[in-house]
């Protein structure tokens, strides 16, 4: 005996799952100031951002020579936390959205 296959009532969704919205990353930027010592800035980058000595020096020199350096990129909340901590160390740090370069 054959049994007719039941008619399928399952609707096939043609809607594709929405792709996550690409979020524009936030940048933590440190600007130059004439006051803080180079060795101090290197130490702060190592302590706050976990940079190696070489990476810390590279960013410190970028701040010194170009006036600013992007020291971290990512989600807003963490960017704010890093900027706040860098400011407690008296560095001229701020956040900006990628592409909003001042």
């Amino acid at each position, binding site marked *: 005996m054959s049994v007719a296959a039941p008619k399928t009532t399952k609707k096939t969704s043609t809607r594709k799952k929405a792709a996550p919205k690409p979020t524009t990353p936030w940048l933590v930027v440190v600007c130059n100031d004439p006051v803080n*010592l180079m*060795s101090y800035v290197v130490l702060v980058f190592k302590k706050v951002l976990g940079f190696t000595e070489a990476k810390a020096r590279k960013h410190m020199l970028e701040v010194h020579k170009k006036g600013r350096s992007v020291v971290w990129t990512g989600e807003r909340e963490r960017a704010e936390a890093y900027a706040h901590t860098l400011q407690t160390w008296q560095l*001229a740090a701020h956040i900006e959205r990628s592409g909003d370069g001042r």
Partner: protein
Amino acid sequence: MEDKRLELKLPAPVVGPLLEYLLPLARETGEGALAFDPDLKAIEADFRDDWRNDLANQSQDDQTRFAAIFDTEEFRKEGIAEFGPEDCEPLLRAASALRLKLRTRKLGALADSALENGEIDFARLNKEEQTAITAYMLLASLQEIVIRHLDPSEDE
């Protein structure tokens, strides 16, 4: 980090007047403890006051610790200050805050390049500026000592 205590010895006759000059700055409270105007343009407006207050409180704590370490009979008489590893980071931040305050409030007439390169004609400064620049340089020396203590690989 080294966990031994650090002893700083400075000539008492020199540091006494500088201490008297720095202590009032270090004891400022509230907004006065903020050494610079933080760039909060990208921070939500509702959050900015809390952010500034938090920075001011942190900076005030650091500068209060600085004052407590140096405002002692021993430092005034002998020029000796002793502090532990737990004091190093607050001291560094406080010294940075005090240098920023000196720069904006007392040394505004000096060019950034002169300060960065140490090209300062001491004789051309007025009395107030001479005291301020001496305190400014003393704080830098203090920072260098503490940085070497925290990170012996740092050799600038």
